[in-house]
């Protein structure tokens, strides 16, 4: 039985941000996550660090928050935030009046913008639709969301934070009507852990209501599915947005060596049952294709869906629901923090921890905006091209992941799960989606004797099945050809047995 001051349920950006803040303010804490980090909306988003301009027209307060956080994250995350810049492109037929409104709103909020000609825009992003009228340059950035979570958690680990991933919370322990702890099941072994704390923070995003109900509370939410597609390579080096009222498919974000495009918006009930429809994929490609024509013919390597955890609202169009966040005090020792977006995670965490500090009657103030993120020295950083300097000993050739990196992650995290290696190194995130490198990564784990024969086969099967879910909606053209080859390798050459 573990005793600590604060339990954080949820290892997304918010949860990890809270862990970091608590660590810097010296508060003992324990974070529980049912999957790996960024398993929910954090891991299923564009990876876009907004300049805020996107909300300037409809929600100036949210826009201001975003912009300030954008500046902070650029400062504290020098090596993990890619300062790509962004363009809002106006296509023929897009309203000039909206452009004026957009510019005015950004100015009022204080977000720097620059109107540039179509010629200049095409110079910056050669793949842009040659028909664009003009564009507005904004300071958008991109980040790998897994990496963001891991760097935040690093601070917690360095200062004694206790972290349990792949542990599912099954019970919230109450005593005299107060939440005093949780029980969580280790998904690998079935072992039950009991952890007691003074405060429980429910930072589970789309599952907030489910978790809250374990304590007899509720968090009214609207769950809105959004899908994204990933391209084979960077079609743009800057974030591309459509200069119009927010709608489906109007963002393209360069992230590492790929682009993410999306998104869609469909209300759903169950965050654990997500299916990416081919109609969504078609819509995204079509809309993205209006901004970057090559999108219509490019190779899509993966398509996936995430759930936006939005606070319940009366508005019908979920694009309009405020992205603002809320801290709910359930008056029983548990708080829920819900809503928000990736860009403002740090601010959300700050407000949450401010609340916790107040309830403990402690005065230490937040330093997360000043201190650079820990662990950045291990990153290869940007620009991407400097990773080409050394091509030796590479296990994942698509994403340039070396054997040393893989071994280091295995040793450091003690992981038995190839998915964990994937999140931490991008192994298997490239065009072949782990076709070759998973065999190698598991082979290395076998060599290092960290898994048993039973585990090895199950892991491979489990990996292939999970991976398939993200690939299936993107299977045509080159990616279908790729997939047939990978299937041929595993089922033909390696003669993997069918699961019973």
């Amino acid at each position, binding site marked *: 039985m573990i005793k600590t001051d604060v339990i954080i349920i949820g290892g997304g950006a918010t949860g990890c941000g809270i862990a970091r803040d608590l660590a810097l303010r010296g508060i003992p804490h324990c974070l529980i996550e049912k999957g790996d980090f960024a398993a929910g909306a954090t891991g299923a988003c564009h990876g876009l660090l907004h300049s805020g301009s996107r909300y300037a027209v409809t929600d100036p307060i949210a826009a201001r928050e975003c912009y300030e956080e954008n500046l902070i994250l650029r400062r504290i995350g020098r090596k993990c935030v890619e300062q790509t810049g962004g363009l809002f492109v106006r296509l023929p037929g897009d309203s000039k009046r909206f452009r004026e409104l957009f510019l005015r709103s950004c100015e009022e909020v204080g977000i720097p913008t620059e109107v540039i000609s179509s010629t200049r825009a095409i110079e910056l992003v050669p793949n842009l639709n040659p028909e664009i009228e003009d564009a507005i340059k904004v300071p958008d950035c991109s980040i790998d969301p897994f990496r963001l979570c891991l760097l935040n958690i690093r601070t917690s680990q360095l200062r004694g934070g206790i972290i349990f991933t792949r542990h599912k919370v099954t019970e919230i322990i109450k005593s005299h009507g107060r939440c005093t702890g949780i029980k969580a099941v280790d998904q690998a072994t079935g072992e039950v852990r009991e952890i007691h704390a003074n405060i429980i923070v429910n930072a589970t995003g789309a599952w907030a209501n489910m978790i809250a109900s374990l304590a007899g509370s509720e968090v009214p939410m609207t769950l809105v599915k959004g899908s994204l597609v990933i391209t084979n390579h960077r079609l743009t080096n800057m974030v591309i947005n459509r200069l119009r009222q927010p709608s489906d498919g109007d963002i393209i974000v360069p992230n590492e060596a790929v682009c993410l495009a999306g998104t869609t918006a469909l209300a759903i009930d169950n965050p654990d049952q997500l299916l990416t429809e081919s109609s969504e994929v078609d819509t995204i490609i079509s809309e993205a294709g209006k901004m970057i024509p090559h999108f219509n013919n490019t190779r899509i390597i993966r398509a996936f869906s995430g759930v936006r955890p939005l606070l319940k609202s009366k508005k019908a169009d979920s694009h309009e629901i405020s992205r603002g966040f809320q801290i709910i005090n359930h008056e029983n020792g548990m708080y829920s923090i819900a809503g928000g977006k990736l860009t403002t995670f740090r601010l959300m965490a700050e407000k949450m921890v401010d609340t916790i500090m107040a309830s403990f009657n402690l005065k230490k103030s937040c330093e997360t905006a000043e201190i650079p993120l820990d662990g950045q020295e291990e990153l290869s950083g940007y620009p991407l091209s400097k990773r*080409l300097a050394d*091509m030796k000993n590479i296990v994942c050739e698509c994403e340039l992941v070396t054997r040393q990196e893989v071994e280091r992650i295995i040793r450091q995290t003690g992981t038995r799960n190839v998915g964990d290696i994937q999140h931490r190194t991008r192994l298997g995130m490239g*065009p072949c989606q782990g076709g070759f490198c998973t065999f190698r990564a598991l082979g290395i784990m076998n060599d290092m004797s960290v898994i048993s024969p039973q585990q090895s086969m199950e892991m491979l099967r489990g990996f292939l099945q999970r991976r398939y879910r993200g690939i299936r909606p993107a299977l045509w053209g080159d990616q279908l050809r790729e997939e047939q*080859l990978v299937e041929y390798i595993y089922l033909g050459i390696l003669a993997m047995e069918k699961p019973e």
Partner: protein
Amino acid sequence: MKYEHCIRCTICVENCPVFRVNPEFPGPKQAGPDAQRFRSDREKADDEWVLLCSQCKRCEMACPCGVEPAEIILKAQQRYGLEHSHTPAHLLFANNYYLSALGSLTVPIANMIASAEIGKKAFRAMGISTYIPFPKFRFRTMRKEKKILNKRTRKVAFFYGCFINFYRPDIGRKIIRLLSALNVDVVLPPQWCCGLPALGNGNLALAKYFAQKNASSLSNYIDAGYDIVYTCTSCGLCLLHDYPGILEIPQGKKIAENCYDVHEYIIKLIHEEYAKPVFKETRRRIAYHIPCHLRALNIGYPAAKLMSLIPGLECEILDDTCCGLSGSYGFKKSNESTAIQLGNRAVSLIRKTKANDIVADCGSCRMQLGGLSGLPALDPAEILCESLGITDQK
């Protein structure tokens, strides 16, 4: 964006001769479509290992998806060459045309220096390998040859290339007489180095310079009704592939449409019944080593077809290995080990055929295979001329 089509099948890697023997080179897949996802026009090139690619094009011939890795790597090599200083070896070979011109003017001295120990030491100090002897310069280059114009219906402008010009003008003369014997007029248009040595040594600007001059000259002849004929398969690949391609020569397409390999041209003449050569018996047992660039020309193996018409000639075709020299590639010290290993493998396969002579269309291949095996290395045109009784003397 052809690299989108790469399905990572590794067939290109299986075919790459450099990857097989040099662990420093990551192979065409990693150097091409994999690395391209990380390259950016806005950032400095950090990929020095791209220079290890010999541009043999075997990866492109093997790729089932149309990725063209060699082209991606070629562009990366040019980028690297633009952003980093060139080694003395690179500078020397890029400007081979000028240096060879100087060499042929000062013939006995130039050859003495090149073959003397002091010359070899100097070369090695500059990063140039000396494991096979340098070809000897000739004084009487092709420039000094006369054209043959008898107002026949078929006329060609002969693009002879630097190797023939500076080292083996005797073969060039044989080819002129061969074409003339087939009733074809031959002129020698003003010409310069095709540009491939410059391209292969990271000097895109110099390559474009040569290419533009050649294109203008040849273009005039094409307009005047001449077909262009080349004999060196690397010159041919440069004219047909790189002029309209990476060198962006405006007349590139026209040049490509009107250039023929000399053997391809002769077959055309035979097929059109314009020429009816009578090949006499020639008893030789030859191993025909197919130059990598001939494979890359997509014209099949026309010289093999012609030689199959020669009675008594036993010819075994070997097209599975690269000789390793790859133009000036093997002459650089950093590639010496690669070139020797590949050359030895090619030679061992040749020895298995028990042939007495090696035949190859490319001067580079001949130098390498002849030098490493000690066997005579001939141009297919020499075999054809022997069979038709044509010599280079009057």
